[in-house]
């Protein structure tokens, strides 16, 4: 077990996805971290409705921030898994979402943090966990100037990403430019999570438009370098009257998988009890 400085502050390195989604005020330590996201049209998906996948970016930054803060000296961290269970729908009305997270387990080479995302009224929009693995090195070269990638006119995050669907609805691609970089200069894990959710939701909605995402679990298998297009291939594993399940394999331009996700869908948004 590596000694941990629980008071080490969270590093908030704002890249394009954070700016596009108006994520900020990220602070705290490994013991407790928080951050906010102002909602707006940028939180919409490809169908114009709320896109719960954007919460993956927020969770990756805040919960992952707590997990990264627990790293040993001289190390950086990469996200290896991100799992969210969705609750109340994501608003697009300008209200604020509050994410909080804390490290639940820490060892010398990895950690995981759990957390929630709540509305201003305290309703839980998502809960889940993020796993990180510690790696040698540092990451600060790809932090972008504030506002560089904020596009208030974008009709939604899917459009901002440049998401394109194949005619069969089971395949989707995005270009991977600097705008979707993480601090390490690779494709942002929250973006991979989000496009996986968007791809699965698009495929499922073609079969049953009344279903919405209820959870998504993504395991990150390889880094995805910037440049070229990454492709999400969706497989509908189960389709019932009130639920559906899909897997999504995210492929790099070289054809190797960089992430594998499992998505579930339910009939309606649960309201807070």
């Amino acid at each position: 077990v590596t000694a941990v400085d629980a008071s080490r502050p969270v590093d908030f390195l704002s890249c394009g996805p954070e700016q596009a989604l108006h994520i900020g005020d990220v602070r705290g330590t490994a013991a407790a971290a928080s951050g906010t996201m102002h909602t707006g049209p940028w939180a919409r998906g490809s169908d114009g409705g709320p896109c719960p996948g954007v919460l993956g970016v927020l969770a990756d930054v805040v919960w992952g921030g707590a997990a990264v803060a627990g790293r040993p000296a001289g190390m950086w961290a990469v996200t290896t898994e991100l799992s969210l269970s969705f609750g109340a729908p994501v608003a697009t009305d300008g209200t604020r979402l509050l994410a909080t997270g804390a490290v639940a387990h820490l060892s010398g080479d990895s950690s995981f943090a759990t957390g929630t995302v709540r509305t201003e009224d305290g309703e839980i929009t998502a809960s889940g966990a993020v796993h990180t693995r510690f790696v040698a090195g540092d990451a600060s070269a790809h932090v972008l100037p504030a506002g560089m990638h904020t596009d208030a006119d974008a009709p939604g995050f899917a459009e901002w990403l440049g998401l394109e669907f194949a005619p069969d609805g089971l395949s989707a691609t995005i270009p991977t430019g600097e705008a979707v970089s993480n601090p390490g200069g690779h494709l942002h894990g929250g973006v991979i999570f989000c496009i996986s959710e968007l791809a699965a939701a698009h495929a499922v909605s073609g079969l049953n438009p009344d279903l919405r995402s209820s959870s998504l679990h993504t395991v990150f298998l390889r880094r995805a370098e910037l440049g070229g297009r990454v492709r999400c291939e969706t497989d509908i594993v189960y389709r019932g009257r009130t639920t559906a399940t899909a897997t999504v394999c995210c492929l790099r331009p070289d054809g190797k998988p960089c992430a594998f996700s499992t998505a579930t869908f339910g009939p309606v948004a649960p309201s807070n009890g």
Partner: protein
Amino acid sequence: VTALSPRAAVPFYVCGPERFLHIEAFQGTAQGASGTMRTGPWVCDGTGTPSPGTLGILADSLWNSAAITCRPGATWGVATELSLSFGARLPADGSLLTAHAAVTFHDERCAVAVGSITTADGRALVNGTTRTRFVPGIAEPDPVPLPADDPGAAGIVEWLGLAFSPDGRTAQMDATVSFANPARNVHGGVLFCASELTASRAVAANTNGLTVSSMTILYLRGVPIGERLAYAVEVVHRGRTSAAASVRCHRADGRTAALATVNFGPAAGEGRP
């Protein structure tokens, strides 16, 4: 039939899995419930290694019980999803584990509970989430009577009667009465545990220095007692320090009963209290 409420006591039914794993009485309500499990050789696989999948039985049992207290009248709750992140190594030394759960939101259709399992000295073994759907038809469960004496088993693999194929990619087991949940279907924790054991065998986790870092299982269809279950593993990714496998559990009619994603990382340290 009287509907339970979030303030009602969490129900506790001693079925075969709870008895085999020495899971003891639950206390509390949906706002905060707890239960215990005594460790011992029963949590170990055929090689004497503690199986993290056994914690799925404790988590499924307690967390789902907490969610069930939120059900509307004349319905019962069935788990549709269980997602666990694993921390410290599971002991088998006779120590007592403590599980906690709390419902984070619910409506008339479903509930979501989050929870944790810790060691006797306070280290995090598991954090995770379960999702429960309320279904009509079973207002009050009538658990199947258990044999007076549980036949002795050296460990969880023997108790489950899991028979692995020579290549380690498939396994079979008979769903006996010992594996029943209160609604007389196969206990979700049993499906979770058997999926973990099968995936761990397929990636040769013990000999490759890997351990399960997280696991998500989706329950797609109920499994009646008396069925023969077949597990099939697809290794999605195998790297030097990580692996991911997808496990499908098929009923006797060939339909998929459960789909699990099992992720592996380096066999890590003990974590901090």
